[in-house]
């Protein structure tokens, strides 16, 4: 059994996230995004690599979408409605609620730019009907063997990391995530899982970011300064996510500073989105969540709908307008009106695709921007670049990888040189296999597998019962303070014809085969001349058996202290080895002696032991034999 990971998008780049993972025979597509930078066939993942025949329903077990951003969901209606995928699709409740807005917004932009539309509004609705919404931590049984589970990812409302497991093999696909909480979302959260594979985004593979609050303050100051001077602020954003975050920030600031300057939302679209945010407030951070009863944080007090007539009205205002990168639509129209005035302010998101007005404004300090051949706009207004982005930084990625400690890591959604550096760190610092495949490349490795067997109760009990050892202090004869638990699971694995593999305790084997246990033991009885022992033990009368053993114990302990020699009643023992003074002249095990115990202080010792202790036994016997005075003489 193996795991095969085919990267269809976001391999060594940002855009059109799409990874197809085969795990123990199940095939899951994670995300189905589109690339904002292309308008040709490169905008979608190359789906033909999944199935040559185009029979995607049999080729895939399910599709999982992590969040509503277009580079993660943009190709979904195309894949389901045009390519004909009909199987299960999973996403969180907020993603299911907000994705249609996002897709429809994008479709309109496409149509507005005069491009051929890839799917219709009906396509979007039909596509969403096939989606099963899931809650965080809810276990979803996709089929008999495939189980998936969503974890909070914090990137945008409803963003989730997904865990998938088939039989014994588990993996996590993070989508985009944020390891630090922001104004309206919490930090990503996941359980410690046994994983074969972790696929993580790596947008900020090498960046370490400081606290967001400083940059948020900067933004608020810039906006405040502008409206104080009677200027107008244009905030181009996409309908969802950033708009709500900035709006919470501003609404809160307006309350605190008691500002009366109006804040406008450009189209009905964003207001509509706010309604979803209100219902789904449970998916935001704890602080925002707690506001639901008194005043839902997404019930913006100072926010109004924008009317086109206000475009050239005098006086300061703040306006949220779509689309985000001033690539067309209403934000471009506003830009044309407001850019030539010095007192106005335009804020730009952290990342703009090449070719958009936003991208032109970011590169250098242009005084003029060419819109097309005939139109040129003077840019005299101020530009403020927002530098907070809801992605985790390098430290967050390393923390997550370390926390989950998977067997393999695959990096996606980043830039090649930075990913290489991060890959090196993961390999060297954490000792985990790491890959950063390019688009259309496949990475494969074996999956974890356990052999299943039945286990008898006696085996389980013997394995779980602690096996305490109390090493004795030889000098004081008092139990020492430390206790060792040396439990090892020892059992017998049996396989019979037509039977399930079964693990039993060794005592059960004999009954299983219907026979009696037979022990193989060793015996040895030998004589020693112990005249010189008398000299050693001056104070002790050694002809008493007990004292004889005591002296023997003393002598042997010198050599075998570590073995834990125990003096029993009339005997000495080490594990199964047992020696006692033999008084029986007819002892059958007395083989090499002369048979006469009375002559000259010759004492006989009878030993027996089992095979496990044969090494110890012979060592002890040899030491004892060396005590024979006749040898010494």
């Amino acid at each position, binding site marked *: 059994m193996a795991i095969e990971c085919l990267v269809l998008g976001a391999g060594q780049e940002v855009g059109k996230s799409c990874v197809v993972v085969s795990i123990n025979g199940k095939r899951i597509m994670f995300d189905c995004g589109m690339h904002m930078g292309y308008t040709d066939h490169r905008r979608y993942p190359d789906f033909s690599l999944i199935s040559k025949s185009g029979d995607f329903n049999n080729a895939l077990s399910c599709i999982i979408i992590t969040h509503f951003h277009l580079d993660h969901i943009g190709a979904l209606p195309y894949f389901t409605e045009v390519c004909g995928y009909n199987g299960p699709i999973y996403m969180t409740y907020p993603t299911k609620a907000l994705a249609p807005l996002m897709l429809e917004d994008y479709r309109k932009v496409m149509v507005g730019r005069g491009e051929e539309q890839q799917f219709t509004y009906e396509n979007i609705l039909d596509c969403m009907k096939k989606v099963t919404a899931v809650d965080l931590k*809810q276990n979803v049984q996709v089929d008999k063997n495939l189980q998936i589970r969503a974890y909070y990812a914090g990137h945008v409302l409803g963003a989730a990391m997904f865990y998938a497991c088939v039989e014994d093999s588990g993996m996590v696909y993070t989508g985009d995530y944020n390891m630090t909480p922001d104004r309206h979302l919490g930090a990503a959260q996941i359980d410690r899982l046994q994983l074969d594979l972790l696929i993580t985004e790596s947008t900020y593979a090498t960046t370490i970011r400081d606290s967001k609050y400083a940059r948020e303050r900067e933004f608020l100051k810039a906006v405040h300064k502008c409206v104080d001077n009677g200027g107008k602020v244009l905030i181009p954003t996409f309908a969802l996510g950033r708009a709500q975050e900035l709006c919470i920030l501003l609404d809160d600031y307006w309350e605190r500073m008691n500002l009366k300057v109006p804040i406008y939302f450009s189209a009905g679209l964003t207001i509509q989105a706010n309604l979803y945010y209100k219902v789904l407030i449970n998916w935001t951070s704890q602080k925002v969540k707690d506001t639901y009863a008194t005043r839902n944080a997404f019930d913006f007090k100072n926010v109004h709908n924008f009317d086109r007539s206000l475009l050239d009205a005098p006086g300061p205002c703040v306006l949220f307008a779509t689309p985000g990168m001033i690539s067309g639509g209403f934000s471009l129209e506003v830009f044309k009106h407001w850019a030539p005035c010095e007192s106005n302010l335009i804020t730009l998101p952290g990342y703009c695709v090449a070719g958009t007005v936003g991208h032109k404004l970011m590169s250098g300090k242009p005084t003029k921007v060419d819109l097309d051949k005939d139109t040129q706009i003077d840019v005299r207004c101020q530009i403020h670049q927002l530098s907070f982005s809801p992605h985790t930084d390098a430290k967050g990625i390393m923390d997550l990888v370390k926390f989950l400690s998977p067997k393999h890591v695959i990096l996606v959604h980043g830039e090649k040189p930075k990913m290489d550096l991060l890959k090196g760190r993961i390999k060297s610092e954490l000792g985990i296999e790491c890959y950063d495949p390019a688009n259309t490349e496949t990475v494969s490795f074996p999956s974890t597998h*356990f052999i299943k067997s039945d286990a008898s109760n006696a085996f389980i009990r013997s394995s779980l019962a602690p096996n305490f050892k109390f090493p004795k202090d030889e000098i004081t004869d008092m139990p020492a303070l430390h206790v060792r638990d040396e439990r090892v699971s020892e059992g017998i694995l049996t396989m019979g014809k037509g039977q399930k593999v079964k693990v039993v305790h060794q005592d059960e084997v004999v009954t299983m085969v219907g026979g009696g246990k037979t*022990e*193989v033991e060793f015996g040895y009885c030998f004589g020693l001349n112990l005249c010189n022992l008398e000299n050693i033990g001056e104070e002790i009368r050694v002809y008493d058996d007990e004292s004889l053993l005591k002296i023997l114990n003393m002598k042997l302990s010198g050599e075998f202290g570590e073995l834990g020699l125990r003096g029993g009643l009339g005997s000495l023992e080490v594990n199964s080895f047992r020696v006692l003074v033999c008084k029986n002249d007819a002892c059958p095990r007395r083989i090499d002696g002369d048979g006469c115990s009375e002559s000259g202080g010759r004492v006989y010792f009878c030993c027996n032991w089992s095979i496990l202790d044969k090494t110890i036994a012979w060592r002890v016997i040899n030491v004892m034999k060396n005590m024979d005075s006749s040898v010494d003489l």
Partner: protein
Amino acid sequence: MKFTNLSQNKGYNLPSCHMVNLSGFHILLDCPLDLSSLTIFSPISTILHEQTFDSSSSKKILDNYNLIPFEPYYKTIERGHLWNVSLIDVVLISSPMGMLGLPFLTRTKGFSAKIYATEATTRVSEFMMKDLITMHMEYKQLYGHEENNFLQLMNWKNLEAFPFKLKEIILGKDGTELGSWMPLYSAVDMKECLQKVETLKYSEEVCYNGSLIIKAFSSGLEIGACNWSLKSPKRNISYISSSIFSSGVSMEFDFHGLIGSDVLIYSDFTSTKTNYSINSENVNNQELNDDDFLLNSDERLEEMEKLNFICSCSMDSLKAGGSVLIPIGRLGIILQLLELLSMHIDSFDLKVPIFIISSIAEELLAYTCILPEWLCNYRQDKMYSGKSVFGHEELIKEKKIHIFPTINSRELLMMWQEPCIVVCPHWSLRLGPVVHLLHRWHGDPNSLLVLEEGIDTDFALSPFKPIAMKVLECSFLSGIRLEKVPQLLKMLQPKQILLPDYTKPLFEPLNKSLSCLFYTEAETIRLPNSNKLSELHIATNLASQLTFSKLKNNELTMSRLTGDLYVEHGKHYLVEEKRSTGLEIGPLVHWGRVDLGSLLVGLEKIGVKGLMEYGSNVVNVVEPVKGLIEVKETSVVISIGDESLASRISDVVYGLLNGV
């Protein structure tokens, strides 16, 4: 496994309560509070109070209506107090009502169990408890501090003087329940209790103590209400509390997670009143798709029919100039009723306000707007299409519904107009605004009181007599309809079903196809230990090191296995030893017989000459050194003075035995 039914299901407001002993864990299922027994106390009302007592005379034990005019006590689970609280390991809460008695348990010294409930159940229950505490405070404020408490009054002399009805409620049918009366918990008790609850989502998996896997599945009864699946290594249990297949509010009954358990504890029998007999033919001939049959919208339609009936009765009263009082706290019902009532009001073009009077209503209704994940498909679809999930959100904005925390709110007095519709707690008619309003309207024949089943209506209304207002008693669906039970059980395929004893006549005929056991209140059922073997997961690298040996004259193949065993998430894993000794140990267990003849042959092969003593079981070794081999029934003893020779001889002996 042991199972004890502590108290039986008495409808929506008093779910059943059980104790299960599974794999050594004591699991308490639900901890409700019997609020219907509040009816033995006098209702609070200044007017009634004045009517009942002269201010000069000392307090009597019974008022004029034969009710007890003292600060109420509350009746907890019968027999619950007989359990040693510290022995409970896990508490599972299936519905908001099943949690109302929990603070009594958690404040008990020695309580250390882990409590699990769904997120929504916990929140809704918190609202209900808060409301109960607030209403009780009002009572206390009226009566002030008392020298005697309720229990002190309950001596035999006083009890003897009580009417039969009162005695029965106080002491229970078998006269043992006096000990279950408690003074109400405080807000602090409640807070501490809630802090101990671990909240879950539907079908979220939690693992107690590494081996007990617990999952909650939607039961459809109420927002957040659930059934449970418990998996221990030896036995899987499904627990079905009162469930509704499809309701207009809460998420549909999710039975897929309950399929194939070893034991099914069936605790939903609220609707046994229906005269329906089950015959086994009916079960087998069911050709419909299971999901369709079970989840069809019958229940929802029935519910709507009842709600519409309430609405049309209400309209009749309003048109006649009377007001409507709805003291129902059942969340799902109220949410739908608010929508329907305003629709009816609009369709008759009446200008009648709906007042909701409750200390927690505002917060609770706001909360219902933000939990789409816990609602039925119909409500979720409303959310996706961008509409409000519940009608009340708009109705409040349109000022058709007004919410007030108490009946004394200044805003309420300013707005008050009659006729009106008032929705408020509480169906036992002893606490909260309902008392004042009943006193106001009980004599008006045009007014309407809508009551929920679950109490003795006649007794509950006794302090408000004479009653001229109309009383509408409703029983809302709060369990699985009986005709669907056989089909459900057949689908769930449990190996064993535990059913309440009074269903015996209904289920006896099914016993052929399903193994049923019937439980009686307060009696413990023991199920024999299952001889199911635990499943062991052996790491592949460990398994690849095994050396197998085939036994002589036997089909078995065996191998010795050593590793570290650990239990995680209810599964046993055996992995390679961390501190592996690396020493190859030979077989440790041997069996079989040593034949002396073969032994001699074997010895000869290694150059050892032995002599068999005739008639004995001893072989004397004569060459190369002297020695002795004794062959006994269960052992072979080799006595020889040479280490290597002894070891070689033992190899010969082992060769004649089976071993592993």
